[in-house]
């Protein structure tokens, strides 16, 4: 069975070929083979397979990859949208106007 993919052409993954040195660490940490070695720089070969986990951009020493990784927990947004207090999410404290599991980087469960 072909591997499953999500909504077309929404993933925010981008590679800056000018900054990329081809070191390949992003290829190691990607769980979905989204990237592949290109000429010198890496290339996105399967954008729709990208789940925006952020492993690649986090580990790029040259900041050549960008992606809106956010919190990474989609359920948090859903629970926040329907006004849940996040009790069934992995983040016990939350406000109802934000995603149940913090609103962005650095605000988690402080």
């Amino acid at each position, binding site marked *: *069975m072909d*591997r*499953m*993919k*999500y*909504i*077309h052409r*929404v*993933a*925010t993954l981008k590679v800056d070929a000018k900054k990329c040195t081809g070191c390949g*660490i992003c290829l*190691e*940490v*990607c*769980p*979905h*083979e989204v990237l592949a070695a290109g000429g010198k720089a890496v290339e996105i070969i399967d954008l729709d*397979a*990208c*789940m*925006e*986990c*952020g*492993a*690649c951009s*986090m*580990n790029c*020493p040259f900041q050549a990859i960008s992606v*809106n*990784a*956010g*919190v*990474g*927990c*989609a*359920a*948090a*947004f*859903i629970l926040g*949208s*329907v006004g849940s207090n996040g009790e*069934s999410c*992995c*983040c*016990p404290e939350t406000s109802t106007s934000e995603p149940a*599991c*913090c609103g962005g*980087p*650095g605000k*988690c*469960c402080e």
Partner: protein
Amino acid sequence: MDVRYVTMLESKIPVVETRLDFNDLIGALKVRLGINRMNYAVEPGLYAVGSPDAESLVFVSSNYKLSFDLLRKELSGMNAFILVLDTRGVNVWCAAGKGTFGTDELIRQIRTTGLKDMVRHRELVLPQLSAPGIAGYKVFSLTGFRVLFGPVRAADIREYLKNGKKADQRMRNVSFDLLDRLVLIPVETRMYSRHLVYLMITGFFLSGLNRKGYSITGLGTTGIRFVRNMLYAYLCGTCDGPILLPWLPGRAFSVKGLVLGVFAFAILAVNRLIGEKPAEMLAWMLLVPVMCSFLLLNFTGASTFTSLSGVRKELDEALPIQKTVAAAGLAAWCWSLFSGGKDG
């Protein structure tokens, strides 16, 4: 319980077994059923497997006990260290996404445990799914330890080590097979179960209402039907949805859920389980699909391939429609209580 320790440089490091015992297995079963899963943690810090020395490998783990157990059971026969980070009892991948399985926490644990003095080498083997939270190059420049991202699954560690700490693509890929989806069903079912029960209780007692006032016979017919159909739609969404996921059409989970819900309604209709009044039949035609659509949308949070941008898009587009349809369905159901028909 007896805890063994190894002493290194005057620090007592607890030794953990590499065989899981009955309590570990029961604990794992419970968290998979959604019982106590936010309270299943081990103390952060350094642990020993076997009799490690200054040359032994260091594996890094989250402090969610399930993660910890899955790791240590693959290390039998080895002498190694396990460095456990404080991820607030959350598993590796979620914690990495939130930043708690993060660069700062790893550096902090390296410093607190005095790891530099415990081992002569400068390598750490981390689970690959910690990569969203760990900038390997930063850990290296700040601690001198090289971060090696090992396989996704602990079960591949042995082969990874045999291959000279090299992971092949299979070890680096994350799939979402039937078994992966099945183990998520209990937690998915629990997630809105309280809401479901409130709704069922409310609907059941409301179903005594009719044009002439209130009658308990309504409870036995309309009420029972409401409870049964609600439960049916809910379980369709939380159980059948995940199972059938790859075969349901569309990329958006809300669409997959919609299609599933339409089929589920059709089955009810063909078996004449949706009541006799047009308003009530309409209500089920709206409620069953919308419940399945919503529950599948929720399943994106447990899936391993949905992008945040995609989920946001689905929420922006599908959620308002779902809210409207759900409200209309409930309104139609309430209307049916007072409209004419066999049960009136």
